[in-house]
C-alpha cells in the first residue's frame, strides 16, 4: 500500500483551484489553491474569522464562489454530491424541532433515497447501525432537545456515517463536547481513515492537532500552509496564522467592499 500522506499519482479526492469567497462583495477567503490527498485526516485550523467554515461550505457549494473551482475525484461537485458526508456546526439547527435522534440520522440517507420516495427498511437499518456506532443506540427514540450537547454532536456524526460517503466534512465536531465524546468521535474518525476515507475537520484546539491529524490546512483569510502535519505545523507557520492580523488582506477586502458600495 502506498503512503497516504505522500500520494503519488492517484486522483485527489478534493482539488481546489484559485477559489475566492466573498460575503456581500467583501472577500473572506482568498485564492485557495490546494489538493487534498486520499485517506488522510485533515485538520483545518486558524483564528476566528479565518474562513475555516467558509472553506468547507464553499467546497460543498453551500455558498457561492466569487471565483475558482472545486473538483471532487476530478468531477464537478454536482455529480459527486453523494460522495461527501457533512457534519454542520451544532448551533446551525433548531434543536427544538420535533424529531428524534433516529429521524435525524435517517436524514443522512435522504440522498440515497431520492425524491418523493420513503426511506426503506435498509435505510432504517443503516441509520440504527450508525447510531449504534456512536454509542447512542439507546437514545434512538429520544427527542433531540432532550440530549446533551455531546450526545447531539454524536447524533450529527451518526448522520454523516449514515451518508456512507468517501469524503467527510466536519464543522467543529469537537466544539462544546465532553472528553468522553471527543474520544469517541476521534476513534470513529480514525476508523474512517483506516477504511480509506478522507476527512476534513474544522478544529480549534491547537494542543491536539499533532495527535489527531496527519494533514493540516492553516488558514487566515488565505492558505498560510497546507501539508503533512509534521512538515507544516511549525512555530513559524503558527506565528503566520495566528500572530497579528493580516492587515494587508483585510484592508484590501474592506477597500473592495467600500468601493462596491460606492463610498
Amino acid at each position, binding site marked *: 500500500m502506498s503512503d497516504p500522506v505522500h500520494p503519488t499519482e492517484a486522483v485527489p479526492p478534493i482539488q481546489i483551484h484559485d477559489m475566492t469567497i466573498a460575503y456581500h462583495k467583501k472577500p473572506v477567503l482568498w485564492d485557495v489553491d490546494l489538493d487534498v490527498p486520499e485517506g488522510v485526516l485533515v485538520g483545518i485550523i486558524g483564528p476566528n474569522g479565518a474562513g475555516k467554515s467558509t472553506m468547507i461550505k464553499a467546497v460543498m457549494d453551500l455558498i457561492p464562489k466569487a471565483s475558482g473551482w472545486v473538483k471532487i475525484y476530478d468531477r464537478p461537485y454536482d455529480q459527486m454530491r453523494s460522495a461527501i458526508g457533512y457534519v*454542520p456546526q451544532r448551533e446551525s439547527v*433548531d434543536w427544538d424541532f420535533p424529531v428524534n435522534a433516529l429521524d435525524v440520522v435517517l436524514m443522512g440517507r*435522504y440522498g440515497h433515497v431520492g425524491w418523493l420516495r420513503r426511506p426503506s427498511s435498509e435505510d432504517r437499518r443503516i441509520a440504527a447501525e450508525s447510531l449504534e456506532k456512536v454509542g447512542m443506540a439507546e437514545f434512538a427514540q429520544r427527542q433531540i432537545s432532550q440530549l446533551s450537547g455531546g450526545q447531539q454532536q454524536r447524533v450529527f456524526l451518526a448522520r454523516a456515517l449514515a451518508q456512507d460517503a468517501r469524503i467527510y466534512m466536519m464543522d467543529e465536531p469537537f466544539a462544546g463536547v465532553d472528553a468522553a465524546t471527543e474520544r469517541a468521535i476521534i476513534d470513529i474518525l480514525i476508523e474512517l481513515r483506516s477504511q480509506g476515507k478522507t476527512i476534513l475537520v474544522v478544529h480549534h484546539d491547537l494542543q491536539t492537532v499533532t495527535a489527531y491529524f496527519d494533514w493540516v490546512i492553516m488558514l487566515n483569510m488565505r492558505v498560510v500552509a497546507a501539508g503533512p502535519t509534521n512538515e507544516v505545523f511549525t512555530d513559524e507557520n503558527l506565528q503566520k496564522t495566528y500572530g497579528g492580523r493580516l492587515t494587508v488582506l483585510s484592508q484590501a477586502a474592506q477597500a473592495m467592499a467600500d468601493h462596491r458600495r460606492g463610498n
Partner: protein
Amino acid sequence: MELDSAFWIILTGSLASASCALLGTFLVLRKMSLLGDALSHAVLPGIAIAFLLSDSRAIIPMFVGAALCGLLTTLLIEAFHRKWNVQEDASIGIVFTALFALGVVLVTAYAGQVDLDQECVLYGEIAYTPWDTLIWNGVDVGPRPVWILGVVFILNILFVCTLYKELKIASFDSAMAMAVGVNATLIHYLLMGMVSLTTVAAFESVGAILVVAMFIVPGASAYLWSDRLVTILCLAVLFGVLSAWVGYWIAGIWDSSIAGAIVTVAGAIFLLSLLFSPNQGVIARLWQRAALSVQVAQDHMLLALVRRFEVDETHRSSREELLQAASVSHLVSRLALRSLEKSRLVVHDSQGWALAAGGKQEALRLLRNHRLWETYLSGLGLPENRVHGPADAVEHFIGRQLAAELGAEVDQSMDPQGKRIPLSDD
C-alpha cells in the same frame, strides 16, 4: 335548508382551517408564522391585476395572479434580507404592506370598470357560503367555496405527503438538505407557493381573520402536545376542524360572526394546550413542582426523625416538631406527613411519631447522601459551617449511581462535623 346550510358552512370552515393548519405547522416550525399573514395580504395586487386582465371573477386567472404575486413577495423578502442586508422581519413588513397598499390602490382605482370591490376580496364571509352555488351542466352541485377549498385541501395533503421528507429536512437543517441533494430553496418556494394558493382560496371564502389565525394557532397548539412531526401535523388539522365545528355552534348561540367564533375557539384550544399539555403545560409543571416540594418535605421529616434516632433509639417526636422540620408551608408539610404515614414509612402512638422499618432505611439513605455531600464539599475546600445548606438542597436528588461515585471520592467514615456517615445498604 337550515340543516343544509349549517353543513355547508361547517364543511367550508373545516376545509379552510385544515388546509391552513397543515401548511401553517411548517411555517410555525420554521419560525415564519407571520409569513402567512404577509402573503395573505401581499397577493392582493396579483388578484387585482388578474381581474383587470381577464375582466372577470373567474377562478383560474385569480389563482394564477395570486400565486405569481405570492412568489414575487417571497423573492422580494429574500432579496431584501439576503442581498441588501435588511432585517428579515423588516423586509417581510415592508414587502407585504407595500404590495397590499398597491393592491388597494388598484382595486379602488379600477373598481368601477370591473365587477370587483374591496369587500369581496378582503372580507370573504363564510356565512354566505350556502348561497354561492356552483352550477355545472345546469345542475346545482353545491357551494363553490366547498369545491375550491376541497381541491386546495387535497392539493395540500398531496404536497405534504409526497414531499414530507424533503419538507422535514429542509425545515430542520437546510444546509444538510443541500448537502444530500434536497434543494431547500426550491422547497421553500414551493411551500410559499402553496401558502399563497391556500390563502387566496380561503381568503375569498372565509375571510382574513380565519386564514391568518389558522396558519399559526393550530400548529402552535399541536406543537405543545407532541414531539413527533407526523403527530403534530395530524393534531393541527384536527384542531382546525374542531375549531370550525365548535365555532359554528357558538356563533349560532351568540348570533355572532362565524369566522370570529371559529378563531376564538382556536385561541381557546391554544390556551387549553398551554395549560394541560403533558410535558410543557403549565398545569403539568405546577403539578411536578408541587410533587417535588411534598417529596422534599417528606425527606426533611425523615431526616429529622433519623437524627433523633441516632441519639436516642426510643425517641418519639411530636407532630408539631415534624411539621416544623419540613420547613415548608403548613399545607405542604401536612400533606407530606399524611403521605409518609400512608406509605408506612412512619408510625405513631400515644407518645408521638417514630420511623417504621422501611422509613428508617430510606432515612439512613438520605442521611448518607447528606453527609457524603457535606464531606465532598468540605473536600473541595468549603468551610465546615457552609456545607450544611447546600447538602440540604442536594440530598433529595442523589441517586444510587451518584451516591456510589461520591462514596468512592470521599472518606466514608466521618462527615466534616465528625458525625458518622451511615453505610450504604447495597
